[in-house]
């Protein structure tokens, strides 16, 4: 029997923007499905709001995989159904429709919306009833670049509002920008968790190329103990190096060997690289 999620233990504090990262099939959606009551776990338990809420899911806005609405109803009518379920008194959807930029199309049927508009309506629905927490599972899946940009802007606005957010996503750049904490899972197992700062190692990345002198440059990089990993893409080498690695000294050493780099870029390690390193080891 395959275990979709195994021995996963997470604590998310109020106000955190928590990213759940993992490759496809790693158990992200299954985990979110269990904590939102649509999947029945074989074992284990979870607690929302320290068990203080009778109907905790009414205090949480969730998108799980796809936006789910009645296709023959318009935005207002669909939001009214969500409001009714959540038991919220506030029937004024102007503010949230404005936030997701759907006010102009509020009277159009859901079936007539583009995928990006559907996703933005789903985000609007999560904001009904002043939720204490928000769960977004792959909110940009299947969207075109404009749709991704729109949803990304909306997510940033939501994250800035101070609500607790759980975000399962492949948008590692955005997770890095938005999230305060992350958990990395693979095959249902937790590989790493903590604040984004603690997950990102102190290592740096350098990107270097030397035109036709590719072979001697590669030999030098491989022989240098300060360089922890090397990936090459055409003429370019991406290397992970120690925090105190000195580019000037590297240039000097290379010039002594008559290797003259045509391109050198130094930057902090990105979450994407960290993610790939952590998941490839597991």
């Amino acid at each position: 029997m395959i275990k979709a999620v195994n021995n996963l233990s997470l604590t998310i504090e109020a106000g955190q923007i928590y990213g759940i990262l993992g490759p496809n099939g790693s158990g992200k959606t299954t985990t979110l499905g269990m904590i939102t009551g649509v999947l029945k776990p074989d074992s284990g338990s979870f607690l929302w709001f320290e068990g203080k809420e009778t109907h905790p899911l009414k205090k949480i806005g969730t998108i799980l995989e796809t936006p789910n609405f009645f296709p023959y109803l318009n935005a207002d009518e669909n939001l009214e159904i969500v409001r009714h379920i959540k038991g919220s008194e506030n029937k004024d959807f102007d503010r949230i429709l404005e936030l997701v930029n759907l006010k102009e199309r509020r009277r159009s049927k859901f079936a007539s919306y583009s995928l990006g508009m559907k996703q933005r309506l789903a985000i609007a629905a999560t904001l009904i009833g002043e939720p204490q927490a928000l769960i977004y599972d792959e909110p940009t899946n299947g969207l075109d670049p404009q749709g991704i940009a729109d949803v990304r802007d909306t997510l940033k606005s939501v994250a800035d509002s101070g609500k607790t957010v759980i975000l399962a996503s492949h948008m590692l750049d955005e997770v890095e920008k938005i999230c305060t904490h992350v958990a990395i899972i693979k095959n249902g197992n937790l590989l790493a968790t903590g604040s984004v700062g603690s997950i990102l190692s102190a290592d740096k990345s350098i990107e270097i190329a030397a035109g036709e002198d590719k072979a001697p440059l590669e030999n030098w990089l491989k022989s240098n103990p300060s360089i922890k990993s090397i990936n090459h893409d055409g003429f370019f080498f991406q290397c992970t190096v120690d925090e105190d690695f000195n580019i000037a000294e590297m240039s000097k050493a290379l010039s002594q060997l008559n290797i003259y780099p045509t391109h050198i870029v130094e930057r902090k390690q990105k979450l994407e690289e960290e993610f790939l390193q952590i998941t490839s080891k597991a």
Partner: protein
Amino acid sequence: MFNLLSLEYKKFRKNSVVSLLSLFYVLFLPAGMILIKDFKPESLGPGSMFIPGPETYYSFPAVWQYVGYAGNWMVFFFLGVVVIYLICAEVNYKTQRQTMINGMPRATYFLSKFLAIAAISFFATIYYAIVCAGIGMYFTDDWDFAFIFENEWAIPRYFLMSFAYLSFAGLLAILLKKAGLAIFIYMTYAIIVEPLLKVGLKFKDWAIGDYANYMPLNAIEDLMPNPFFLIDVPMADKMDIVLSYSHASITTIIATGLFIAWGWFVFMKRDL
């Protein structure tokens, strides 16, 4: 309770399938009676002296039986499909799953669907009563209110029949999730499988054959049976074609309880 019914109304008030099928019920229930307006029993040949003519169908108290039998088919076909649609469409749109994600407990969702079934049965019954009363008052020469309601509890029987058919449809929708498949099984079981089983058991001369009429869909149908089976001729008793109203009612109540319990058990346990 009204909160849940109001939610169901908001979900489906603009749905064309539900509106169209409900309209068919409203139109065809009295239309069925109009179609037999010119029926002449003598056209059936020998034995037709037992069969009453249209002047009987339209008068009290027989109008309750005849419209009831027309309603038996209309509820089964049109409103049964409405119920399957109310449940399966939400699986298809994934709004069932989203409703739970939005915080409605599973038990409440299940309750909302069976409250909707009860409400549809209630309004179908009210309409049946209005149609019967209207036709009966128009065609009966001498009537009073006491006479109108001399109908062997036809109104509660019609409600029970409707609720039972629709609960069966609801069970199949919950079990099968796909509207097309659920409608196919619903129709096939009620129109082909159970009648064949009933005839087979009766002719096999097994002891169980005596109980063949107690099969669930047959018992539901016998709450508003074909009025020609009720004609007072010795043959009808001999053939034991229909259950008595009391036996049909008790069997239907037990069967409906089992439909709901089965649906509840499956719905509460499975992943959405």
